[in-house]
């Protein structure tokens, strides 16, 4: 099977963004995922976030590993360059690509198998490195592509289609990221684009590793009753801690003055943080950990912007790389030439 090209059907006059582009300019190939798969909704959310931010599509770099979730990089922004790495190892490829060129927009998409099992070490170390990218974990609590095995975020007691029963405690990616000092930690739900898109937008603007865990039900293997990754359960148990107001315009109209707090991102844009719980302070890492785990113990899933630390400095800031992308440096800027070598050789006499 070759990949499928989406039939281009233009139904109405299309909205254009600051670059004069339409949403279509941010789309990709037709999805081959199951009808109703949560991942497709996230794809749509990313497309929307790119469109709303008016990012130039050809400056987008889309990276993923292997899995249903990892396939989705092909379903968005086809004008950008994409790469499907080997299973679980996208964070390293993203680190290398970003090291070579700090000027592009990086989006990594992964699954819970890809990120929390085989790729767990790489995810943790990309967080430490604070690679400047949006990292979306499409979390369905199951291995979709290999047909329904448990992942590291599967609930205890969950039963697979083959009848095995999971007994290992799930990893909560949000708690993990907090414990590692991640500079941007959020959780969304594929079924709530309203909340998700602003989180993705903020993640794209964050200077550093923006980690967004998105609950994304797998309709084929893990949407049954009793699954905490099912549409029904998530809809029921979701609590929002702090999120962003999607559009500045809405602030005045929809929200009261006190509950909205401006956050200036690295690129100068101002995002408006909307707090649901007055006590919640997304800059307090330990507080976020407590909040999320206490709610979890009550069977609640906390979503929203859970933690942000703006002054971390990304990998390049910390390592003081030059502003020019390394891959654009000319040979003359890199090779010390004959003189350099001769001088050096004298030292080895």
């Amino acid at each position, binding site marked *: *099977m*070759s*990949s499928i090209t989406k039939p281009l059907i233009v139904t109405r006059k299309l909205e254009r963004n600051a670059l004069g582009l339409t949403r279509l300019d941010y789309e990709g190939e037709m999805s081959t995922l199951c009808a109703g798969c949560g991942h497709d909704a996230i794809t749509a959310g990313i497309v929307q976030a790119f469109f709303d931010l008016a990012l130039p*599509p*050809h*400056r987008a*770099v889309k*990276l993923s590993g*292997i899995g249903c979730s990892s396939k989705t990089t*092909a379903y968005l922004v*086809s*004008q*950008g*360059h*994409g*790469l*499907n*790495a*080997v299973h679980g*190892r*996208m*964070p*390293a*490829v*993203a*680190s*290398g*690509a*970003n*090291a*070579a*060129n700090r000027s*592009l927009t990086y989006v990594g998409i992964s699954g819970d198998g890809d990120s929390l099992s085989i790729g767990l070490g*790489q995810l*943790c*170390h990309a967080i430490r*490195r604070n690679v400047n990218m949006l990292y979306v974990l499409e979390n369905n609590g199951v291995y979709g592509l290999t047909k329904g095995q448990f992942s590291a975020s599967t609930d205890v007691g969950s039963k697979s289609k083959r009848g095995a029963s999971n007994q290992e405690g799930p990893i909560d990616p949000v708690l993990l990221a907090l414990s590692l000092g991640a500079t941007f930690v959020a959780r969304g739900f594929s079924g709530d684009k309203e909340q998700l898109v602003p989180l993705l937008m903020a993640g794209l603007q964050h200077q550093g590793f923006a980690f967004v865990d998105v609950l994304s039900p797998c309709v084929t293997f893990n949407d049954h009753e009793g699954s905490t990754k099912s549409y029904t359960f998530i809809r029921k148990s979701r609590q929002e801690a702090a999120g962003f107001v999607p559009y500045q315009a809405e602030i005045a109209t929809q929200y009261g003055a006190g509950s909205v707090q401006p956050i200036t991102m690295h690129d100068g844009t101002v995002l408006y943080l909307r707090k649901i719980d007055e006590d919640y302070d997304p800059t307090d890492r330990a507080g976020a950990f407590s909040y999320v785990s206490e709610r979890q113990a009550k069977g609640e899933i906390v979503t929203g912007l859970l933690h942000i630390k703006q002054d971390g400095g990304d*990998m*390049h800031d910390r*390592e*003081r*790389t*030059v*502003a020019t992308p*390394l*891959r654009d*440096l000319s*040979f003359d*800027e*890199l*090779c*010390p*030439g*004959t003189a*350099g*070598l*001769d001088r050096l*050789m004298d030292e*080895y*006499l």
Partner: protein
Amino acid sequence: MSGNGRTERSEAPEEEPPARVNDFAFKVATANGTGSASANGLILKAIYRMGIPVSGKNVFPSNIQGLPTWYEIRVNKNGHVARTPRFDLIVAMNPSTYAQDISEVVSGGWILYDDSWPLAKSLIRQDVTYIGAPLARMCVEKFAGARERILMKNIAYAGALAALIGMDVDIMQQLLEETFARKKALLGSNHTAFTVGYDYVRENFGLLPVRLEAMEPDGEYVMMDGNTAAALGCIYAGATVAAWYPITPATSLMDNFRELCKRFRTEPDGSRRYSILQAEDELAAAGIVVGAGWMGARAFTPTSGPGLDLVSEFVGFAYYAEIPCVFFDIQRAGPSTGMPTRTQQGDLLSVAYASHGDTKHIALFPGSPEECFYLSVQAFDLAERFQTPVFVVSDLDIAMNDWRTPRLHWDESYRWDRGKVFGEEELAQLKTFSRYLDVDGDGVAARTVPGVGAEGAYFTRGSGHDRHGRYTETEEGYQEVIDRLLVKLETARRVLPAPVIEQHEGAVAGLVCLGSSDAACSEAIAALAERGHQVNKMRVRAFPFSNDVGAFLRRHAIVFVVDQNRDGQLRTLLLSEVHTDRTKVHSIRHYSGTPLSADHVLEDVLPVLEPHDARRRPPHRSTEPPLEALRIMSR
């Protein structure tokens, strides 16, 4: 045995052997973490500055402090730099290895030891000369504090040695001054320590028959190890992204690269024209260089055997997705963790066919530090030209030992070969860009790098893809691409560095080797020639093998393949890739972890060649010296 410092020989003194100038080997035995490395470095450098060809091999444990370590120095006026296992002199400074060290000196040789404490009776050999000097005692007198006394004893044995073999004292003094230019306080004590050892030996013993005499310094040579040269190669090739996970003996490549970057790649404001990422493991390091290579930067990672296993999945990915990247495999003794501080060439098969599925990789085999430089530069060109991982396969012996190697030169006219990369301009001229389409039959399809206009965007994947880079599970789409990869490799095969062949008049036998085996093989061939056996030599420099390689094998009636591994991996590769009659191929294998010596080669070659050559000419075997004397003959 008394500690009074007189030369003692247990048998009645024989006649003094004639002086043997600039042609001997010795070994310094100490414990690691005691500072002996710098003393040994000074000794080597001093001999080198006297204009005498010299090489040093460090035999160190996989440990940080307190275990035995040795430094082997060979002085050879003819420039033979391979290891020799015959030591004329042992500087025995580690009582825990006295027994072994003393047993290793040649009959008629010398042992310099610290006679601050007496030597056990059981250690006395009748056929060697013991030279006792109370170094520790003298250092206790001259210096205060345990640490300084331990450190200074090293310089004291350097002084004693200098007096025994006739080292140039001015040169040593000069070296000390250079070394301690910024730590004047230390200069004084070092000078004192050196003099203590030197004077004591001069007064009590005098020069040995194995001794140094200054030669005309040859400015065309430097002392260098392979990892330094390789790091320089990476700098000169314009590599900007380097990723690694520490592992002996690859670590010093990155240490050197970092230092060179600091020197050559730092802006006045401190910002850096490079990115060095210490990854969490080799899998990640490989992923980083793949990502950077894909992005259009020159990127590399140095590793060794265990890391090689771990990078293999990414190597297969880069092979299939056609991403340029450079891997250095600095081989050490395997299998598994093996002996991390010992040398071997055991990864040849693993490199050649790294990763599951149909894969075959370009590998370059530098035979000296000099070549570590040139082939490293070439590796980046080949990687970008052929859009594939390229391996530079070195080993601990080349990488970490001190080699006399030709001075490196840089050709200003050199420009990097970035291969076929389409930019905006080229793309504008195309109707559609097909990432994996070969238009000119060389098997190489043009690539684009991310950030280029939308026309050049495509999706890179390690899953089945067709000429357009589109996902495919069709027979034709899939097969077209993997068939082209073979064409590409065939193109590469024709331009890879050719083997270095040395022909001798009338030789019927040919010897094949690669990498660090070269020096010992050259020496062995010279020794064989002296005994009337002419042997041609071919040093393979790249895989897949060029046609010359097969031709060399086929044109010799007897072929020796020298491998520094147990399984004869070079031989395996040759037999599977090249047409030849395998019955004429003799495998010479050395894999104990020590560098190859000419003796090892001779031991295996002679039993084959002697009967053969004897049939071809009048017998004169009985007049030949026994094997043991060969080292002397070959000088």
